[in-house]
């Protein structure tokens, strides 16, 4: 087991180097002098320019420059936002909980509906319900979620006036961030109604962000379930006279879940991508919207640092999923 963990962990080193290389070189593709790019439109005086050139090592070979960049990154120094002058890492950590809260709600939503739907579809194979689930999930998989968000706003906010259009909570509440997760913070505070306000603001973004994972999970659960239901041990269980529910819930589901867990892990990247669009539509103050805003403000340090941090987060989650996968499926860890 230890060997398995060590191999997996060591595999992320080249990936990490690759991501930093990408972040390092992409900024150099911006036409013009990198210091002027990083300094923004206000310009920079020549003495400071020269000092920065030395500091960043622009008078040295590219490989040395990359070394300097890498050592800065490893010390947590990702530069400062050109607009706010705040360190990129500080801004990221302030906004990240909002994105995580949304992503967690979305994946829980996707699981709560996707797992049962996929299981039922597999049990009632080729029924109307099965075709319905498959049709809906293929539609969900093809959904342009930026449009889906607008349509849900149109129906639930404009026509029915049930949910708010944007933000995380009504402006009249002020919640001291303790955990950063508003659902928890509002419960801790004694502001009346704040929790419901936060819940109401979460509903539409959760549905929008959860749609694609929901579709993928339902499809995956169905096909994994179908495969497992054809196995010999299921026939044995049937022959023993076990109830249908016991067979499905205890014998089949456990083994069908293994591929589903992997798929959930792979959805993390999809969730962050979706979060960029979802946060833009609902003005959700998370890292996705922050990144898009940075592009339009030409705030290159934020773009470079933010993309790098998101890449690292996805990489870390993938590693965690890999390790859990080895934990729940002994075949994996003994093979390598």
């Amino acid at each position, binding site marked *: 087991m230890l060997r398995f963990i060590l191999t997996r962990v060591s595999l992320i080193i*080249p*990936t990490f180097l*690759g*991501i930093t290389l*990408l972040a390092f070189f*992409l*900024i150099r*593709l*911006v036409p013009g002098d990198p210091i002027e790019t990083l300094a923004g439109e206000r310009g920079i005086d020549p003495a400071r320019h020269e000092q920065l050139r030395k500091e960043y090592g622009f008078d040295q070979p590219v490989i040395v420059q990359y070394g300097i960049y890498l050592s800065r990154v490893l010390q947590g120094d990702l530069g400062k936002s050109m607009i706010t002058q705040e360190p990129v890492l500080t801004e990221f950590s302030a906004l990240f909980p909002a994105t995580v809260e949304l992503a967690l709600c979305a994946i829980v939503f996707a699981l709560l509906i996707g797992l049962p739907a996929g299981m039922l579809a597999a049990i009632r194979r080729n029924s109307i319900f099965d075709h319905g689930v498959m*049709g809906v999930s*293929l*539609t969900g*998989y*093809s*959904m*342009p979620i*930026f*449009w*889906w968000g*607008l*349509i849900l*706003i*149109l129906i639930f906010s*404009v026509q029915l006036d049930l949910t708010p259009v944007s933000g995380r909570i009504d402006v009249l509440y002020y919640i001291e961030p303790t955990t950063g997760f508003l659902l928890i913070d509002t419960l801790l505070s004694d502001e009346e109604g704040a929790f419901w306000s936060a819940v109401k603001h979460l509903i539409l973004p959760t549905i929008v962000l959860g749609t694609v994972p929901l579709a993928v999970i339902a499809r995956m659960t169905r096909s994994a379930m179908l495969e497992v239901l054809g196995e010999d041990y299921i026939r044995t269980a049937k022959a023993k006279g076990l109830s249908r529910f016991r067979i499905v819930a205890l014998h089949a589901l456990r083994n069908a879940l293994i591929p589903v867990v992997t798929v959930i892990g792979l959805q993390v*990247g*999809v969730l*962050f*991508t979706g979060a*960029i*669009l979802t946060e*833009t*539509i609902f003005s959700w103050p998370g890292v996705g919207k922050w*990144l*898009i805003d940075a*592009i*339009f403000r030409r705030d290159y340090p934020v*773009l470079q640092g933010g*993309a790098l941090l*998101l*890449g690292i987060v*996805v*990489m870390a989650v*993938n590693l965690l999923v890999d390790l859990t996968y080895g934990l729940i499926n002994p075949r994996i860890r003994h093979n390598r």
Partner: protein
Amino acid sequence: MTAETMEAPAVAAPTATPPHPLREFWGYFSANHGAVAGLVIIIAVVLVALLADVIAPHSPYVTDTSIALKPPFWQEGGSIAYPLGTDPIGRDILSRLIYGARLSLLIGLVVVAISIVAGTVLGLVAGFFRGLTEIFIMRLMDIILTLPSLLLAIVIVAVLGPGLMNSMLAVALVILPHYVRLARAAVITETSKDYVTAARVSGAGTTRLMFREVLPNCTAPLIVQASLGISTAILDAAALGFLGLGAQPPSPEWGTMLADAREFVLRAWWVVTFPGLAILITVLAFNLLGDGLRDALDPKLKR
């Protein structure tokens, strides 16, 4: 399943000629109603795109503020001259959607063409030369796969500058790893087969082996992936357009149309509804087609 086993001896009989491969393919493909529906929709979208000049009732660019934000014809205040209504600066939405079909199909085809060509070559090279070349290529692809696809595309476009061309390049790069992996995996299974050894023994060079012998036998998974790739490309390019990073206004690209319409969601439902519906239907059609192709080209998989 049983029916097939019953028929097997008849097919194997020396007098019976096997069905033409295309015919056999169509037999499998047409059994999948969803796939046929997808194909019909795609043909319709292609026709609309080709005949845009003929069937579009208005120009997609001419603005006329006196008819701004007219609702679709079945609502009060709408007129049949503008069947799906007009946008905030008085352009006919239907005409813009029709011309947008051209752009979306073009995006899908160009993106997939770029990544399939580059991906196949890289995959063939990785599969044939192994060693350091392979490690380098495949590691690079792993890194691209690790990053969330749209995030990488956004960063690339942000650096290169917004625009249709750059967004197509960015999306092509992002979906590249799938083709590289497929091509490499196919090459590795194929090269161990006897016909490749035979060709090598008879003196075929590496290039000939790569492109004339092995490549034709790896096409099935690539075709399936291409169909699914077109849907990803259309979706991602539309998302970039929506974020203001893809095709720029006044281009009638569907995602860009949505970006323009966003602020009018509260008063004019039609300006946001139709472009998105067009994206959804087209993407769904390509996904249906891709699923159908996969089942038809790989009968082992589901039968």
